[in-house]
């Protein structure tokens, strides 16, 4: 299977602080990857580097065979990598429908601002795609509500729906269920994953809830101290002793009481 995304020896340092080191990951087309790890383990740094928000200090990111390392985020988006945000990034003074139209219209208008200046904002194609997105992400009831008035779950859905406007092949979701109540988390993920599966999008999602990961991920990347300490199917990766020790907290400290620096295990 050829890799959609290949990450090689990715590093990121902020001064003396090492935020990410020696990350090597290949993601094949169609996979759904759950990214887990404690706060500060490097999950978001990883996502931010792939989407161009942070410039890596070293290493390479290859998407569909081409290097995207250090490109500005808008160029990476145009190549087919999109992302959502921990805090939904919306246009609060636009309605839900207008938010979607904006996202879709930009995707259609091309990279140059000159083409954006001559492309009509309101076209039948844009409107049609916006209606489809409303239906897929089940936010149609809020169609004409201002984005600033949306409940948390709807904000998350709209954020992700906007990210899919350019039909990305790879979508990175940064904590799609953060701020959502326990009861609603599964329903929300069901909606998101169903919509994305219908589009055939490869997904990487950062998640704290292990039940969600178990349920939706084909594969788990466990981050600790800036690097991947376990990588494999959920059943294997989540039961890895280091993951249990450092992330899920299900394993009690070893008898001698010492903590050793974990090594990468490929299941």
């Amino acid at each position, binding site marked *: 299977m050829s890799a959609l995304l290949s990450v090689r020896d990715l590093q990121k340092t902020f001064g003396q602080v090492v935020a990410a080191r020696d990350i090597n990951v290949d993601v094949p087309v169609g996979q759904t990857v759950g990214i887990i790890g404690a706060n500060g383990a490097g999950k978001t740094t990883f996502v*931010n580097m792939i989407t161009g*928000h942070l410039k890596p200090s070293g290493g390479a990111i290859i998407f569909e065979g081409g290097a995207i390392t250090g490109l500005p985020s808008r160029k990476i988006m145009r190549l087919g990598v999109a992302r959502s*945000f*921990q805090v939904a990034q919306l246009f609060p003074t636009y309605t839900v429908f207008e938010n979607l139209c904006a996202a879709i219209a930009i995707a259609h208008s091309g990279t140059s601002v000159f083409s954006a200046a001559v492309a009509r904002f309101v076209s039948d194609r844009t409107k049609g795609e916006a209606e489809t997105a409303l239906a897929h992400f089940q936010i149609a009831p809020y169609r004409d509500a201002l984005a600033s008035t949306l409940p948390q779950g709807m904000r998350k859905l709209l954020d992700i729906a906007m990210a899919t406007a350019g039909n990305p092949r790879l979508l990175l979701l940064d904590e799609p269920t953060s701020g959502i109540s326990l009861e609603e988390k599964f329903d929300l993920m069901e909606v998101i994953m169903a919509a994305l599966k219908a589009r055939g999008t490869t997904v990487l999602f950062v998640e704290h809830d292990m039940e969600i990961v178990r349920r939706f991920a084909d594969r788990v990347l466990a981050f600790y101290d800036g690097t991947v300490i376990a990588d494999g199917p959920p059943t294997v990766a989540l039961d890895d002793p280091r993951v249990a020790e450092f992330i899920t907290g299900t394993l009690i400290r070893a008898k001698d009481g010492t903590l050793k620096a974990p090594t990468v295990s490929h299941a």
Partner: protein
Amino acid sequence: MITAIAIVTDGLVYAAWLFVVAIGLSLIFGVMKILNVAHGAFYAFGAYISATAIGLYFDRGWPAAGGYVAIGASAIATGLIMGYVLERVFLRRVYGKDEVVVVLVTYALFLILEDVLILIWGAEGKAAYQPYSEAGSIDIGGLAVSLYDIGLVIFAALLAIAAIFAIKKTTFGRLLTAVIYDRETASAFGVDVSRVYTLTFLLGAVLGALGGAITAPKISVSPGLGVEVIVLAFAVVAIGGMGSIEGALLGALIVGLFRACAVHLAPNLELFAIYAVMALVLVFRPHGLFSPALARKI
């Protein structure tokens, strides 16, 4: 050689004046996030009232030394009264609104006050040269330098030291620092932000008026003198970094020396030189010399 000395002395004198004017603007911006265009009006009123006070004082033939006290006292009174009225009556209503809306309010106030100035003092120039001429001059390398100008440089230097000391060491200074860095957190920790605002605005107003007052003896005080001040002070503050005293000091020195170079070497380029140096600094340091580049957060 004479030109070099002239450039340095002119540059320093101009920088001293700029610093006094800019520090008030920078302070208000740093603490309140308000770009106070009405600062130009504080300056203009300071100049007019000081010129009037000097006139009244010297008409009575009282000793010259007291004239300097008249300058200071009139400036402080002007700044306090105007600052208090503007803050309480107008600015209070727009706190928390969009920055540009607040700028427009101060801009409107400035427009009004410019005409009020003409209503009170008329359109003719007003001279109050006595403190300047009484001060005399000394010879530096063959160049007569006014003692009044030297006094200005010393005054600005003392002001800079006092301001840096006050920010770092006094309670009020620390409160200011807290509000500058994070208004909400400071408020959550019990800092009376509203009171800090009032005090800051008064202080800024007094400094603006003082800038005008110390200039009055050097020029013919006439309408429209507040305008250039606000743009120049902004240039200084933009170069130095909004809200930074060290920045205002360095910005004033850079602009002062650049302008002096232009005045003596290429007089046609005077205004151009000032803004060109600002543009140059901003190309490389978009938020000024003393302001760290802010990272965008997601």
